[in-house]
């Protein structure tokens, strides 16, 4: 279980996260929603050690992650799919996957599992990743993160700018992962996607989790979507 307790973080003198607390449990999807600039991406970057927490704690199964150098966080089993995918564009699909596998010394078994989730990538192993479609690039970004066999998967708006069929595919994949016990923190702005996947929804406002709802009987008309996201 990933726990964030009373996190303060920011960039230089600008504080973005204020006393933010959040929990991601195995086999559950925690969706994070909020307006632009609320601190959603900063929260993910803080978990990944790319932004150092100024106060509070981040633990994975009681192992502290805060204060670790950014390159050590993924080795603890945290996969990150950032906004914009951030692939190695000059490298092929196979090489991108291989680089993902190497971090935690994963083998062909992991590779095969990951490719079974995204059969389309298997057909494009020799293709340079920058030449893939947006949806395929997103698949590859998720596949690369899954090569770590993560206990926790962080995704920053994975459906942004994708066509409906790709969104469906990614949603189904995340549901499959959820069934395998992966804890997922999903930053997402699409209410329909959130309602179809989330166990909990954390609404972030002004750098803190203002309200958390269990996803039972929620609808797009639930007032918190209007209050915190403006939808």
């Amino acid at each position, binding site marked *: 279980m990933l726990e964030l307790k009373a996190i303060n973080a920011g960039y230089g003198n600008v504080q973005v996260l204020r006393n933010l607390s959040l929990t991601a449990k195995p086999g559950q999807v925690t969706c994070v929603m909020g307006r632009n600039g609320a601190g959603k991406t900063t929260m993910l970057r803080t978990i*990944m050690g*790319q932004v150092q927490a100024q106060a509070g704690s981040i633990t994975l199964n009681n192992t502290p992650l805060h204060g670790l150098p950014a*390159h*050590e966080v*993924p080795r603890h089993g945290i996969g990150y799919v950032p906004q914009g995918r*951030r692939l*190695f*564009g000059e490298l092929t699909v196979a090489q991108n996957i291989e680089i*993902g596998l190497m971090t935690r010394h994963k083998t062909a078994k992991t590779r095969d599992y990951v490719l079974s989730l995204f059969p389309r990538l298997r057909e494009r192993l020799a293709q340079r990743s920058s030449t893939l479609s947006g949806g395929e690039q997103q698949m590859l970004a998720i596949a*690369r993160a899954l090569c770590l066999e993560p206990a926790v998967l962080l995704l920053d708006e994975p459906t942004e700018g994708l066509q409906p069929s790709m969104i469906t595919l990614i949603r189904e994949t995340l549901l499959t992962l959820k069934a395998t016990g992966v804890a997922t923190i999903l930053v997402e702005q699409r209410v329909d996607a959130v309602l179809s996947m989330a166990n909990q929804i954390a609404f972030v406002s002004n750098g803190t989790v203002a309200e958390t709802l269990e996803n039972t009987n929620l609808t797009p008309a639930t007032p918190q979507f209007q209050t915190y996201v403006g939808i």
Partner: protein
Amino acid sequence: MTRALALHLGVIAALFAAQYLLPSYHQTNIARIMVLAVFAMGYNIAFGYTGLLSLGHALFFAAGLYATGLGIELAGLSAAPALLLGLIAGGAIAAATGVLALRTSGVSFMIVTLMFAQTGYLTILYFGTYTRGDEGIVINRAARAIGSLDLSADTPRYFAALTLFAIALLINLMLTRSRLGRSMIAMRENEQRSRMLGYNPFRVKLIALVISGLYAGAAGAAYGVLFGYVGASFATIQYSILPLLYVLLGGAGTTLGPFLGALIMFYLIDISSGYTTAHLFVVGAALLVLVLFAPKGILGTLRERAVKWLP
């Protein structure tokens, strides 16, 4: 892998056969080119694979050259341990430089490595009592032998250069296929993204620079023993820029590019200098054509357009 290995073994075999076909002048040239290609392969590991644009590699080459030369001249070592000393010196100086210079990146890294190399050059001049400054050291023929093998003679020299080249090339090929090689490429592509996936950029870059330094040190050491001269001119910025040009010409991030680049550049200078004193103008024009029509170098462009499996 089989195709790639066959290609590399084919190149080594062709160079082996060339020693029986080439006249003495060209045999010496090719021996020199093979040693310089090892230097360029080392540069390629730092620049072509890891993205470290260094202007300080003359320091690593000179470290190997002087460690070997001074080892023979001052410490009375024989050629074999002196060569080993040169190899170690290249790696050690690269490690020391890397620990400091890798705190910077991009243009700053270029300038810091250039400063280290200039410091090395000035140090050689400062300690002229031992290094004989600009004049340099001529290693006597008797010291340039391993056992009964006289490395100052054409054929043994060619064979020694080929042996070094073959070992360096095959290690380079293995490196590109290894986990380390892949992580170096990831670093070149994007350091931030690599870190996000759990790679320690400093560690990977330092290892790459040390391997690069070992190559440069080995080349410098071999150059001293095979050609018998150790001079401060090898520590000047020209010897930092030359491997960069070889790599750019042959193809950065390709295993055979450094050799091809060194071969073409060497003969371009050799032939054009026979016609004009402005031979560097010819080199400049050739590089201009390259940048315009094959910006990834000869083998880089070939790999992109036709031979995808080229390592």
